[in-house]
């Protein structure tokens, strides 16, 4: 027995084996159809139904704007110009707020995770702030920081900060004890344990936290715009259309805001997850 003759052992199945199904569904065309058809059908049926109900029962556009009205608004040049400008203003505040808030949140979370005394001293404050509905701070923020970009991104940063702290702290506290012990057994020092074990192990938790922070940063920017009368952005646009009782335009803004949300909360983060995929595997 000098050479291992055994074949590489049976591989651990990576996904559950495909269940036997009718052949059309399992083909690539069938799969695409199965994925795309139901949403398309639901969307079409929904739009048609709303349109039909509105024209049949003559429901006022103030209650529910007809899909055709929303399309009309979204195609008009004025709307596109206004919404383009406002979207940029909102996203600028969201992004600055996210970077500042989530960045400092992750740093504080790491500091709290690594230092027992810092954790003990700061934890009550974090919990207190966590349980304060932070939206209630918007008026005070407006008073201190004015009604412009500074107030918006600061408020966004504050909302983004706490989820990042909490998620980072949680991510570091669930690092597998066995991995740390393994590193210790190989004489890793504290810095090596942090950089090579804790930090990579905490990546999935931190990314999830950042995802929540990003969503909250957008909420912060919008609320900032609601509260500060001259802040501009999509929030102000919504209020302007609201005062004009232009519900179709409001719905159009909501559609844009939804797209922005999908782009930054879902698509951006699926790219980030794909990029950090190797940290997400839970293997022993």
């Amino acid at each position: 027995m000098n050479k291992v003759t055994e074949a590489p052992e049976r591989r651990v199945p990576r996904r559950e084996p495909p269940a036997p199904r009718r052949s059309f569904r399992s083909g690539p065309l069938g799969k695409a159809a199965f994925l795309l058809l139901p949403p398309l059908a639901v969307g079409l049926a929904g739009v048609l139904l709303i349109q039909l109900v509105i024209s049949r029962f003559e429901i006022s556009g103030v209650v529910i704007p007809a899909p055709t009205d929303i399309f009309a608004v979204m195609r008009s040049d004025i709307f596109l110009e206004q919404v383009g400008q406002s979207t940029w203003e909102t996203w600028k505040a969201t992004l600055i707020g996210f970077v500042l808030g989530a960045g400092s949140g992750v740093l504080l979370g790491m500091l709290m995770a690594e230092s027992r005394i810092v954790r003990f001293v700061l934890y009550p404050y974090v919990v207190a702030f966590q349980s304060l509905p932070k939206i209630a701070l918007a008026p005070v923020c407006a008073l201190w920081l004015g009604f412009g970009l500074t107030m918006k991104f600061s408020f966004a940063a504050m909302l983004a900060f706490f989820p990042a702290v909490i998620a980072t702290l949680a991510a570091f506290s669930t690092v597998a004890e066995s991995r740390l012990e393994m590193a210790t057994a190989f004489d890793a020092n504290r810095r090596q344990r942090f950089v090579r074990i804790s930090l990579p192990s905490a990546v999935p938790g931190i990314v999830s936290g950042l995802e929540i922070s990003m969503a909250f940063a957008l909420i912060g920017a919008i609320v900032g715009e609601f509260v500060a009368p001259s802040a501009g952005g999509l929030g102000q646009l919504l209020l302007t259309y609201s005062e004009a009782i232009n519900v179709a335009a409001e719905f159009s803004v909501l559609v844009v805001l939804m797209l922005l949300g999908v782009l930054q909360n879902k698509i951006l983060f699926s790219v980030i997850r794909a990029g950090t995929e190797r940290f997400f595997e839970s293997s022993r």
Partner: protein
Amino acid sequence: MTAAPRPMSAGAGAAVRWGGLAVVTAVLLAAWQFLPSGVQGDGSSVPKLDAVVKALGPSGEWGEYLTALRTTLGEAFFGLLIGFAAGVVLGVLLGESRILRQGFYPYALALQALPPIALAPIFVIWFGLGMESKIGLVGAATLFPILVSTMAGVAETDRGRIEMATAFGASKAQIRRKIVFPGLVVPIFSGLEISVVLSFLAAIAGELISANAGIGVILQVYQRDFRLAEEFAVLLILVVVGLALALLVRLARHFVLERMPNE
């Protein structure tokens, strides 16, 4: 940490930690009271500690605080009730049918990405300045976490349990009642936990935008009138209410998990 010398005895460690907490708190409170306030050189922009304490004392505006709090909590409660009921019903429907789930999933994802607070102006147009518009907003905001967790709970019911019940000749209705629904308690509860926090938040947010009563309104009024001691007093009350809500949820979770072990 086993290789390190044995940690300080529990007593000494605790003394250091509590001492640190006390010192930091004392320094913060002293700074609040004695540092020259006013970020913009305007003495009124940060109220002194003693002013806030006074605003929280017996001479504070407790009538105003409590009326506003009652309105806000009422909105949160009724909104949550609507969001919960709708979320559970829709969640079960979507969870049971794979086709429906697939059809609605992209829209659910997209709607989830929309900050619910952005709906506030529309609810004001629909329901006016009273509690109704905030109840609607809270309902819309709390619906999704419950819907998503219910749907996941139904869709991810343990296959083995269903097969076991089928093997014993259970009907579809029996499987639903005896296998699927009991398994939903825990997932629905975790959705509810998120929604409770959201309900309070959405109610205040709605009031900040337009309302005639509630916490959001008095916060705006105090800000406009530069009555910052009262403003801070309300914020501290919100911290306490928020903590109480969190505690309530925690107790409920303990109760639910005790009664309904998931495994």
